């Protein structure tokens, strides 16, 4: 077996030192009834690297990769071009195969990277502090709701209609066990988010208002007004960003008054990967630092006075605080944070702005072209790189029919909101720098065909 270095000679020499007759004898504490005498039945035996690669390649070939077809899916996961150096660098063994930096003297590479990551995220979101990342955007969002409850000591969360429905489901699942009251209704296909209705629902019991920006339909809610209204009632504004590239074009949630900003960092550096692993972004005001979940990296000096970095404020965390911890999270999305940070470093502010501008330019072109297809209506008045179309027919059926034509058309609202048939004509379309004019034409032609 190619991954196991011990030889039979080694094994018998080691058994002599241990004083056991066989490896099986080392398992004598396992009750005999639970010890399997031989191999588990029905499972294949070991396989060569070539055989495994061939098997996996066959499975891979049964999927349509985003890069091999006109592709317009977004709704919380975005396809951007990732520079080659990103993947090269994250595969350096010293990053890839290191553990959590518990011994800072020999983990400064990971620690400095995390410090840079936190600094980049704080600047991007315009918050005072960011942590070293969470599992993904949806779990970060739930943790933010829990954190708001710890800060405000209130148990009612107001969720905007524009929050990704999977995020809403995640919050609902957890709230079912913690007794939080969740106030949410599914969106309607209006040109703009109904900020006024949301604001009217904030009251003295509200712990937090959760608003996605841009929202699930691609619209841009008025965060500043919502923040002001929330603060006037003693509630916190949690802003959710599922497409961080947008912040190269639009004002940051921090600037607009959000108290906690969470996000999905997947779109920079990480790739689609069928949903994971992704990268939860989490940032807030310094005064809420001790209520924040997750790992934090901080700057300090060593015994010679040299600058260095350590994991810090870990008494908030489960391995020390146990049942009183701010969260049970025991990891961060380290390698994804590295990919995000490298991609962000390659872009810089100038590059991120150019990337965002290119996304917006192509999205505007696509919105106009697709909105002109008979039976298709553009819903949004404002958007960044994602917008919603209202089709004359059922959008889920259209998506299926287009997939049969090798066009990955977008995400239908029927898939996301199975209980809201009245918005079943909605199709969320994302356009990035990877989208070509030919792709847009292909989708326009395809839509025209399947809606005819």
């Amino acid at each position, binding site marked *: 077996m190619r*991954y*196991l*270095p*011990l030889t039979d000679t080694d094994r018998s020499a080691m058994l002599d030192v241990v004083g056991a007759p066989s490896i099986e004898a*080392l398992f004598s504490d396992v009750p005999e009834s*639970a010890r*399997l005498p031989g191999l*588990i039945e029905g499972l294949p035996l070991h396989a060569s*690297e070539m055989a*495994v690669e061939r098997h996996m390649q066959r499975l*891979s070939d049964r*999927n*349509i*990769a*985003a890069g091999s077809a006109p592709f317009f899916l977004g709704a919380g996961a975005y*396809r951007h071009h990732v520079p080659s150096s990103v993947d090269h*660098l994250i595969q350096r063994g010293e990053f*890839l*195969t*290191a553990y959590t930096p518990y011994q800072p*003297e*020999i983990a400064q590479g990971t620690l400095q990277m995390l410090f840079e990551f936190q*600094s980049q995220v704080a*600047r991007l979101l315009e918050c005072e*502090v*960011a942590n070293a990342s969470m599992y*993904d955007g949806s779990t970060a969002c739930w943790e933010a709701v829990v954190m708001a409850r710890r800060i405000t000591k209130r148990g009612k969360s107001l969720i905007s209609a524009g929050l990704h429905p999977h995020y809403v*489901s995640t919050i609902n699942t957890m709230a079912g066990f*913690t007794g939080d009251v969740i106030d949410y209704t599914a969106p309607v296909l209006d040109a703009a988010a109904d900020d006024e209705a949301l604001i009217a629902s904030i009251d003295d019991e509200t712990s937090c208002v959760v608003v996605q920006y841009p929202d699930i339909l691609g619209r841009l809610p008025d965060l500043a007004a919502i923040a002001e209204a929330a603060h006037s009632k003693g509630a916190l504004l949690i802003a959710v960003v599922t497409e961080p590239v947008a912040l190269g*074009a*639009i*004002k*940051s949630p921090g600037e607009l008054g959000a108290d906690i900003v969470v996000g999905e960092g997947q779109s920079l550096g990480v790739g689609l990967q*069928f*949903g*994971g692993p992704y990268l939860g972004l989490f940032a807030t005001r310094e005064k809420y630092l001790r209520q924040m979940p997750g790992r934090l990296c*901080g*700057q300090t000096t060593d015994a*010679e006075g040299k600058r*260095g*970095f350590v994991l810090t404020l870990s008494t908030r*965390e*489960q391995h020390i605080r*146990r049942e009183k911890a701010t969260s*049970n999270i025991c*990891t961060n999305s380290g390698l994804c944070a590295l990919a995000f940070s*490298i991609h962000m*470093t*390659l872009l*810089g502010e*100038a*590059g991120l702005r*150019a990337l965002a501008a*290119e996304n917006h330019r192509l999205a505007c072109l696509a919105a106009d072209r697709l909105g002109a297809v008979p039976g298709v209506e553009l819903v949004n008045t*404002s*958007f960044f790189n994602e917008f919603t179309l209202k089709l004359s027919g059922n959008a889920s059926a259209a998506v*299926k029919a287009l*997939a049969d034509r090798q066009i990955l058309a977008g*995400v239908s609202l029927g*898939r996301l909101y199975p209980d809201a048939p009245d918005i079943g004509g909605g199709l969320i379309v994302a356009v990035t720098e990877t989208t070509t004019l030919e792709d847009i034409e292909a989708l326009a032609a395809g839509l025209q065909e399947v809606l005819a």
Partner: protein
Amino acid sequence: MKVNPTGWNPTMPEEIANDAGAPLTTITGNRGLMLEEALIFEIGTTETTGVDLPAPAAGAPNRLGGLDRAESFGLPGLSEPETVRHYTRLSRQNYAIDCGIFPLGSCTMKHNPRLNEKVARMPGFGDVHPLQPESTVQGALAVIDELAEWLVTLTGMDAVAMSPKAGAHGELCGILCIRAALEARGDPREVVLVPESAHGTNPATAAFAGYRVEGIPATAEGRVDFEALKARLGPDVAAVMITNPNTCGLFERDMKAISDAVHAAGAFVYCDGANFNAIVGRVRPGDLGVDAMHINLHKTFSTPHGGGGPGSGPVVLSAALAPYAPLPFTVKQADGTISLIEEADVADHLPGSFGRMSAFSGQMGMFTRALAYILSHGADGLRQVSGDAVLNANYMLRSLEDLLDAPFGASGPCMHEALFSDASFAKGVSTLDVAKGLIDEGFHPMTMYFPLVVHGAMLIEPTECESKATLDQFIAAFRGIVERANAGDLGLTQAPLLAPRRRMDEATAARKPRLAWSPEAAA
């Protein structure tokens, strides 16, 4: 108050003794191949970029609703060569499995095969969107289904929830299944019992799910006190969380009897699967009466730790808990195609599901790697994995126990990790000092100060991936350091002297947190 039962008390060297090696100063701060690297904020500018993109056209259409981000936000950029060099230089300040043995107990730092990386990057896995139509992702769904089948078979359980994103997330999944099952039978309970030697995630998870946590004592030989546990069971206990093999490196001999007693009291058994590597292919938790167990794919099944994540924590479930598993999950249809069951169809397939724990379907990038690893080993290779892992740990235990206190050394063979205490060290030398001494010898230290039940704990898990020659080198170095510790050589309190950094001032880091770069703080 309870004062620091573990003895963990980070200290800074009193002064840098000259004979211990006054720091060699150079103009650059570099020491040969040990290279200093500034922060990107100090070397980059907001105008520099390493990506070629069209310049934004003036007068281009703008539908941003008047929200244009006008002000600079100070994100530095680097050109590609600068970027490659920055991260390469940073990487060289890290220890990693690729550099040598990484014997962190309870972490299972095994080799990360590069085939896994290749497979995860195949376009059909790496470049598919989680919301693509089912017909376009049959191969990806097949990976989930195939891995799920392996996990269920290897553990002897009934079902598996694949979506949890890490071990602790899996724990939460298991506890939520238990809560849902209890609520479904109209018997909500309040207490979860957790041994004092458990990972901190166990009590944190139970508390997060709304339970009160109570401890279970251990016996003198390092196992769960079955009599005490039995005495505590009652109608208020929802679950018992047990790590098996436990964090003292021992197999819980009474596991089956414990499960039977817990079930008889109407409660469920949650098993922390962190240490599954010790028994994979030899013992099925299902045969021990376990109701739920998470599997850390990054431990037992070799997905890379990546400097602290991402993980992946599928949870295997008993027949009693399977009806409450979270969304989404895969179902194989009669025609051989695989469906992803989400909110729209859950009522037809699993009406008791407790719901969704996160967006999308779990850590696909980890599933592909884990499946490649499992297929590479097969049933025979996996059995050899646990055998060699346990042999390596016992070899370590017996090669060190004449010098070090092994509190449970007489309790039988250890499983895949060997546990020692600081009892033999002379006054003034701590577990921390020994760990730092190992760094100077070029090794990553063992886990220190865990489990909490042993003072100055040192938990060594070599894994099956280390050769006898590597183990012998490590043992020789470790013995040398322990001899110094036992003799009271205070020079160890200066260690490490030869790493990229000396001991870090963690107290100042926590008192005055500096968590992001700012120009004022740069000095």
